[in-house]
């Protein structure tokens, strides 16, 4: 519980601050663009659907690569840490999805005020599940690289497979290669696929990091 | 502070004995605690404790439960008696050997000792 509390209090605040900064930046860019041409897309959707998942991925990497060894060095077991980190992933993805939603609300207000064109964005659930899967895949890849060195590169295609479908339900996040028509097939059943991807990535992380040696680092 | 060549507890014990002999530590006077000794000389407290243990066994010190270690009443006399036993073997004989080795006649040595006696000791 101590680890979970520390992760949420320290990292959640940091991520919220990053999100707020990104929102302010997107807004500024939108206003600058509006001076030259008409605004046709949601800048905040670019942030939430494209950039945010990589940010969540990076947080996942940070949690395993940087924080797990520190936890062990402070007398915590990997099991305790992974449990806390899994819970933290859910809370973080939830928090970021809520912030994304809040951003859309504010942005929607500003766009209608300025009479700009707002394009479609996904549901909060879709963002939540995308963030969830990306963060878990970040943890999975970090665990693989930390444990197996260069051989960890095999985790990358696996990670790609796991996250490829998470963006299906989100407009503006890019289309799938080869199979562009598939998204329409299942409708909201895609959410289930994201949940499975999240669980699979977490299980992979657990399997790899469960008895991973912590190397003594030198600075 | 301590040489690293013989057990430190023995060096500490010897030092306390020397203090008792010279009168720096008097009968029934409290000696420093193990921990004080350890911090002062930067040594492991167990080593200091071992020295005290040895001195208690030799009846140089006695323990007052919960208070500390004290110099026993007979410590000085006892150490002096022990010193006298070994004095000739450990101090005089090697000195004589050294004097002969470097060519000082024993008569000179004796004269020097007599000078000390006439000056009233040292």
């Amino acid at each position, binding site marked *: 519980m*101590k*680890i979970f*509390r*520390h992760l949420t209090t*320290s990292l959640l605040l940091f991520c919220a601050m990053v999100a707020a900064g990104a929102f302010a930046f997107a807004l500024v860019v939108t206003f600058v663009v509006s001076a030259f041409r008409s605004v046709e897309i949601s800048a905040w959707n670019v942030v939430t659907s494209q950039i945010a998942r990589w940010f969540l991925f990076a947080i996942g990497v940070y949690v395993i690569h*940087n924080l797990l*060894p*520190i*936890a*062990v*060095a*402070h*007398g*915590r*077991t*990997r*099991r*305790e840490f992974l449990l806390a980190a899994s819970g933290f992933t859910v809370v973080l993805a939830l928090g970021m999805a809520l912030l994304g939603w809040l951003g859309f609300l504010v942005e929607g207000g500003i766009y209608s005020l300025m009479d700009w064109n707002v394009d479609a964005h996904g549901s909060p659930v879709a963002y939540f599940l995308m963030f969830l899967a990306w963060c878990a895949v970040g943890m999975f890849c970090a665990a693989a690289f930390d444990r197996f060195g260069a051989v960890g590169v095999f985790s990358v295609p696996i990670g790609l497979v796991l996250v490829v479908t998470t963006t299906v339900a989100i407009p503006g996040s890019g289309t799938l290669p080869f199979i562009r028509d598939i998204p329409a097939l299942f409708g909201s059943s895609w959410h289930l696929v994201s949940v499975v991807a999240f669980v699979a990535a977490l299980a992979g992380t657990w399997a790899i990091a*469960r*008895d991973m*040696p*912590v*190397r*003594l*680092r*030198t*600075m | *502070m*301590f*040489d*690293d*060549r*013989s*057990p*430190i*507890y023995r060096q500490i014990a010897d030092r306390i004995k020397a203090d008792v002999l010279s009168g720096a530590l008097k009968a029934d006077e409290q000696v420093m605690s193990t*921990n004080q000794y*350890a*911090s002062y*000389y*930067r*040594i*492991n*407290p*167990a*080593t200091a404790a*071992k020295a005290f243990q040895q001195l208690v066994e030799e009846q140089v010190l006695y323990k007052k439960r919960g208070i500390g270690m004290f110099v026993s009443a007979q410590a000085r006399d006892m150490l002096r008696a022990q010193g006298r036993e070994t004095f000739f073997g450990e101090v005089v004989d090697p000195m004589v050997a050294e004097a002969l080795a470097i060519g000082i006649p024993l008569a000179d040595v004796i004269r020097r000792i007599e000078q000390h006696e006439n000056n009233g000791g040292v």
Partner: protein
Amino acid sequence: MRIDVQGLTVRYGDVTAIDDMSFSLSGNKIYGLLGRNGSGKTSLMSALAGYRKPSGSVQLDGLPVFENAAAMRQVCLVRHTADAADKGDKVSHVLEYGAAWRDTWDNDYALELIDLFGIGMGTKAGELSLGQRSALGVVIGLASRSPLTMLDEAHLGMDTPTRYAFYDALLHDFMEHPRTIIISTHLIEELASLLEEVLIIDSGRLVLQEEADVLRSRGTEVTGNAADVDEFTAGLTVLGEKSLGRTKAAMVYGALDDEQLVRARQLGLELGPTALQDLFVHLTDPVGGKR
């Protein structure tokens, strides 16, 4: 805290760092772990701290340490600051980890030590000098108040006054809060008087485990006529020899009995004590060959 190591082996690929090592420590002492570079000190400590899954067994107070929350809680291993923080973390942040993740952490004491070593709270761990990083490691190690605290080369890069401040802090805190402390070092001369028990390891094997004061009385330097020295030391454990003309000095390991002392006197041999440092050098000397 009692430590039992049974048949511990640590391998990195083809390299065997710890080779089937077994020993027990009764605990609540300051132990010195002595060994040359690459002798396996750090690997041994990592296994004791649950950093890696041991082949063989490592038990703390009878509990296997690896992935055992109850045992892990009691352990702290510090090698400078590196494991307990990130380069980019500020010193204040580094201490927060300790406060947040350790039940036994004493934050007031940590701040006192930070002050003693003159470490800036706002400095990033990666920007501290080597000596200060080591000092920060000592802060983490001591303030964790772990029943088993291991300091791996904790004095690295410290200047002399800082090292003495470290020794004093260590000794003082050990007396206030007795616990098992293991220090690995090559600075034997300086640390020797702080140690109660010594473990010497070499090439992943335990060479000896002995009370420091007993060890000090174990080595004897025998000096005299070369032929006489050879006669006297025949059948004894000779760790090293050096000759000057017809004079020879041999370092003998093991207590000498009365008969041997008499014989030495008859032969006109001089018997002198040896320093812990010399004993260590000879016990781990790969070219000595006379173990």
